[in-house]
């Protein structure tokens, strides 16, 4: 005997609830709806009819659209897709994927030659577009100019124009997913600067974006940003702990240099090995001879500062270096032994952040005297 003559009996309560949830959802975001429907984006979106759907504000990296009809599928500047988005046998006519907005940018909108134009032309073009007319397409164009222009000035201008006109959420997304993913050091550095400028507006998101980059190719920039912005406390302590395990020595050194810079000129001066010029890495052995050499460096620096402040107050010296006298104020000892102790104390205090420096024991003995 048949259970029921009606189809509903084949659907469980949870199926019916999911269907109702989908209909009543206030969101039309594709990814959110996929999650709401309980569909697996790696297996359940194959060979479907998804013609005309909108991927606005969606991260569809890793989604499998094998054999699916995606004709006319739309997206916007915040749509993220890349080679991990599987489009094997998919129909992509007149869709975001055919236009290649993500990989090729808006080359369909801006001719390739546009990016090689003289910056004056581009600057004029940038200025000709007033804020009132600012659209997603315009934002896309600015992103592409930032990524592709041959002229650094133009790229910077485009980035600034973009930062002034898009919402902060969009800006975070663009920085993280477009600018920082580049292999261009100049752009990455500028992107981190831009990210840093957003700190006041959204502390959590700025720190979150930077933290996510600590394992990426621009970990040094991310670490620098974090060390500048994080307040003293547990978060900074955890960051230092994390960075002490970073596999790249250059990133570690760059991080320590920025941390020392935050402590002031005096600390910045003494965290470098005077012979090699390299920053002392985490867990470095700082020998007695290193301390002696640092003492000599400090003495020389005090001399420079004295000369600069006495004779050249209003100008710059031969090396184009401006001295504020901070080192002399910090390391004021009259004799070498005492100066060495001050340097030791400074290093020891810096070491309290968790750098793991191994300082000479006999130097501690001087302290106790």
């Amino acid at each position, binding site marked *: 005997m048949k259970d029921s003559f009606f*189809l509903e009996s084949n659907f469980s309560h949870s199926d019916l609830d999911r*269907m109702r949830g989908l*209909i009543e*959802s206030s969101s*039309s975001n594709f990814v959110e709806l996929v999650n709401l*429907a309980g569909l697996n984006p790696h297996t359940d979106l194959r060979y479907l009819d998804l013609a005309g759907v909108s991927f606005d504000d969606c991260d569809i990296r890793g989604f499998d659209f094998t054999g699916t*009809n995606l004709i006319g599928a739309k997206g916007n500047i915040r749509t993220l897709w890349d080679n991990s988005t599987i489009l094997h046998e998919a129909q992509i006519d007149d869709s975001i994927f055919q236009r290649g907005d993500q990989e090729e940018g808006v080359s369909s909108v801006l001719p390739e030659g546009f990016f090689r134009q003289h910056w004056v032309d581009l600057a004029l073009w940038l200025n000709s577009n007033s804020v009132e007319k600012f659209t997603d397409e315009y934002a896309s164009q600015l992103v592409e100019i930032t990524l592709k222009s041959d002229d650094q000035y133009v790229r910077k201008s485009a980035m600034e124009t973009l930062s002034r006109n898009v919402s902060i959420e969009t800006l975070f997304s663009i920085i993280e997913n477009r600018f920082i993913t580049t292999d261009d050091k100049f752009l990455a550095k500028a992107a981190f600067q831009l990210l840093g400028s957003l700190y006041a507006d959204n502390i959590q998101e700025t720190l979150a974006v930077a933290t996510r980059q600590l394992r990426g190719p621009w970990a040094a920039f991310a670490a620098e940003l974090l060390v500048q912005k994080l307040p003293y406390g547990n978060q900074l302590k955890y960051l230092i702990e994390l960075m002490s395990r970073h596999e790249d020595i250059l990133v570690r050194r760059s991080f320590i240099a920025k941390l020392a810079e935050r402590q002031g000129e005096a600390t910045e001066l003494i965290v470098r090995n005077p012979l090699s010029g390299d920053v002392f890495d985490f867990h470095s052995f700082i020998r007695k001879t290193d301390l002696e050499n640092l003492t000599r460096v400090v003495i020389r620096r005090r001399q420079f500062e004295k000369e600069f402040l006495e004779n050249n107050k209003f100008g710059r010296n031969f090396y184009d270096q401006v001295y504020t006298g901070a080192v002399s104020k910090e390391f004021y000892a009259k004799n070498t032994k005492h100066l060495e102790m001050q340097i030791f104390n400074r290093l020891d205090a810096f070491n309290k952040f968790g750098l793991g420096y191994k300082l000479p024991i006999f130097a501690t003995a001087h302290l106790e005297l």
Partner: protein
Amino acid sequence: MKFNEKTENPLGQLVEMSTRTVESNIEMAADIFVTLCFGVEDIELEEYTVSIKFRRAYLTTEPNGGRIDPNLKHGIRKHPERIARETEIEKSTKTTVSNNSAREAIVSGKFSPIDQSIEASRKGKKETSEVAEVQLSERNTDFFEHIPVEAQGNDRWIICNEKDISLSGYYLNNDRLCRIIMDNGRPNRFGISIAVEIKRQDIAIEITKNTRWFPLVPNKEKLLNALIGQRLASIAHGRNDRAITFAKSDTFVNSEVDHEG
């Protein structure tokens, strides 16, 4: 030959198929008769009603111990050897005749009084013109024959309506789909498996009742479709990435001859 038949229609509300195999009047052959119907089924969600429909379906066959007679298939579209095309043309002409030429023509007697007023209105060298116009048009009549269950290659049939209207009602009613001819050598098993397959892309849904008026944007509609398709696939007879098998029928006869002696 006595055929054993086994039919599965796990979602009979949507697709129902039954088959009947009859020994043919020629030796070692059997005719396959099929009844096939599609339904549009509703899922009631209190405030909403979701209708499930299919745009098209495929009947796929797999003969066992024989082959399908290529000349005796249901729904063969045979294109004529020659196509005659009838064209009606209404000729037209649009002529501008200068008054001078007209007058000359009248004088020479070639052009009968095109208009006496031309001569009357003519003053000095001033020229006017007269235009005569007739339209040109061409009419063609093309005939298109729709075959709801149309035979295709690889022993399968496509079932669809005109203009993409969803499938509903009976498409075969005990109609002979094909004839299977037994292979030489009297195989141990002779028969055919027939399945109704529907591509996931051909499942269509429609909200026919929406008392709370939640707008069904394309994203919701398509994913609701995917969700329902996924559920139907889990209930149906079988599935693969592309298509879902909604009904299946196995018809076969085991040989009674003991070859072992």
